């Protein structure tokens, strides 16, 4: 202290004095300068949601999650259900462009159909967030699963289970027109390229249909009773695949890997029952939370739509017998809707 000059000493004394009186001032509170503009940026804004269809776990989960996060801030949340109809979806996007919501959350049925429309929307000043299925146009944000990674990790699981066995596997694809199915297949191919010992005895599309998946699997299992693994592309369809494996008495012998949104009844319960050995979950509530976060960030940033572009690939949760019982591996749609 002796090196300090007098003025410093005086300042210190003043600070001490100030510190003694400060508690009284702190009780008056301090305004956080950014929350008000944030609230203003969100209040009264419209967020439009265009899923490929409602009424299935993924889109219902995203809807509930977004609603929960956005409505308390006075955001108006509207939905345009394409109901598996690509034309209806394109019309919905087109009419939304003229209605000018602040944000569009779009679930693409394929890579091309909406691409031009989404670009137009961003030019018109609407933020576009694409979810789980991207299009050829890169918009402000993509939030969703990495299908190639899903295919890779499922196949890795199957290849591992096949070690020392017949090395014969089957692939049950979704619908050929769906990019999610094609991307997943790419992931499968990536892994198979590294494992030439694996023989694919059947690779067929079951159209996301459980009954078709069951029929294909039954026939394949009769031809190849020594099959060691199956890569399925969606848990809603692979209920049928699992039923065929069970009827052939091969549960536990044929490793069945699938993927889905991680809803408890469709994922954890079926892994617990032994129907699936591995279910790569893209954890819908977390995806919904990331979508909501992105919307909040974009609206409060004031950035020009289309001027910044980024991606958020969500983390996958591999559901196996080990974690199927845990509270966190899966989610309940009924809880999310509360």
């Amino acid at each position: 202290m002796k090196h300090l000059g007098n003025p410093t000493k005086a300042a210190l004394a003043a600070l001490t004095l100030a510190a003694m009186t400060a508690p009284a001032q702190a009780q008056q509170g301090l305004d956080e300068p950014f929350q008000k503009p944030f609230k203003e940026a969100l209040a009264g804004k419209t967020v439009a949601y265009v899923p490929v269809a409602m009424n299935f776990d993924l889109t219902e989960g995203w809807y509930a999650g977004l609603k929960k996060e956005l409505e308390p801030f006075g955001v108006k949340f509207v939905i345009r259900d394409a109901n598996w109809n690509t034309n209806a979806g394109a019309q919905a996007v087109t009419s939304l462009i003229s209605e000018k919501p602040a944000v569009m959350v779009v679930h693409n049925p394929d890579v091309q159909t909406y691409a031009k429309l989404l670009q137009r929307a961003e030019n018109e000043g609407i933020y576009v967030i694409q979810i789980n299925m991207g299009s050829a146009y890169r918009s402000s944000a993509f939030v969703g699963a990495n299908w190639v990674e899903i295919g890779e990790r499922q196949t890795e699981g199957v290849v591992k289970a096949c070690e020392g066995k017949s090395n014969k596997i089957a692939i049950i694809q979704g619908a050929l027109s769906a990019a999610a199915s094609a991307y997943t297949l790419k992931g499968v191919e990536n892994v198979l390229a590294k494992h030439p010992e694996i023989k694919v005895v059947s690779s067929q599309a079951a159209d996301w249909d459980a009954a078709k998946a069951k029929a294909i699997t039954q026939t394949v299992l009769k031809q190849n009773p020594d099959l060691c693994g199956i890569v399925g592309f969606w848990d809603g369809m692979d209920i049928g695949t699992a039923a065929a494996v069970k009827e052939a008495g091969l549960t536990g012998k044929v490793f069945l890997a699938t993927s889905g949104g991680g809803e408890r009844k469709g994922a954890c319960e079926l892994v617990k029952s032994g129907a699936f050995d591995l279910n790569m979950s893209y954890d819908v509530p977390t995806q919904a939370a990331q979508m909501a976060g992105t919307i909040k960030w974009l609206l409060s940033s004031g950035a020009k739509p289309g001027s910044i572009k980024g991606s958020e690939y969500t983390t996958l949760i591999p559901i196996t017998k080990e974690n199927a019982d845990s509270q966190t591996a899966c989610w309940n749609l009924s809880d999310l809707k509360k």
Partner: protein
Amino acid sequence: MKRFRVNQQEIVFAVFALLFLVFSIFLNGFLTADNMLTLLQNVAVLGILGLAMAIVVIGRGIDISLIAALAVPPGLVLQMVQNGHSLPTSLLTAVLLTIAFGLVNGWLIAYAEVPSLFATLATGLLLAGLGQAALFQLDVVQWSPGMNGFERLGQGTVLGIPTSIWMFAIACIVVAFLLRQTRWGAYIYAIGDNPYAARVTGIPSRPIIVLQYVITALIGCFAGLVLAASVNSMPTRIFNSTLIYDVILVVVLGGIGLSGGRGGVLNVIIGTLLIGTMLNGMTIMDISYAGQNLIKGVVLLLAVITDSFLNPRNEETAQQGDI
């Protein structure tokens, strides 16, 4: 012309026999008892639906809403059980819904005289929409513990034969009995052959038409229950699939003329066997999806062309709106 006349049933049976022979010789693992059972099991639900469709087609109608009857009432059973209702209550509700649905179809076609194609196209959409909007939480209605035991309807075996094949067999016997042994069955043929003549001879055509659609819806619902039991869930989105075309394929391929009054259960069985053999063979050969559709489309086209040659339209009774 008389000296060389084969009917479509014989042609299709010959095609089936030929295909079967070729597959047996050239396709490893096709001709095994196990694979034969799988083949039948895979088409059992389609066969049951074919029977349902056959009844209305014989009566000179068509029921496009059949897949809605397959999807919605059984889906309702699964949903109600999931929500905590008992299985018998849920089944009863579903049966009542199915009967009501059949009555609406029948009334529209018999009394309001809407052509069956348009009437059932609309009611099918209505029922599927009702299911989606009001009855189901999700498109795929999952099995719940309350349903345990019921999966025996579509899974497992009795005397070494998969249950779904038994269900198809039972449905065949019931429909054959209805069509061939009862007066109502005879009336259905009469109406299909010539509706005006049938009415003139004093057959209660309108109530019989209503009855056809009620029975068809009930068989559709039964097929749905077998399907749900076999895959442990009810994918109600199946309504949007092309299943209805497969059903029509089975019926037309089997030789039940779309102009009505002809054919029977045997035709459905033959049509189902041919489709089953084709699907099974193509799956074993691992033919791509597009290739399978192409082959199916060509076969349907050939069947329809043969049908119009062998069962020419009856110029006296044909009218606009007929299929």
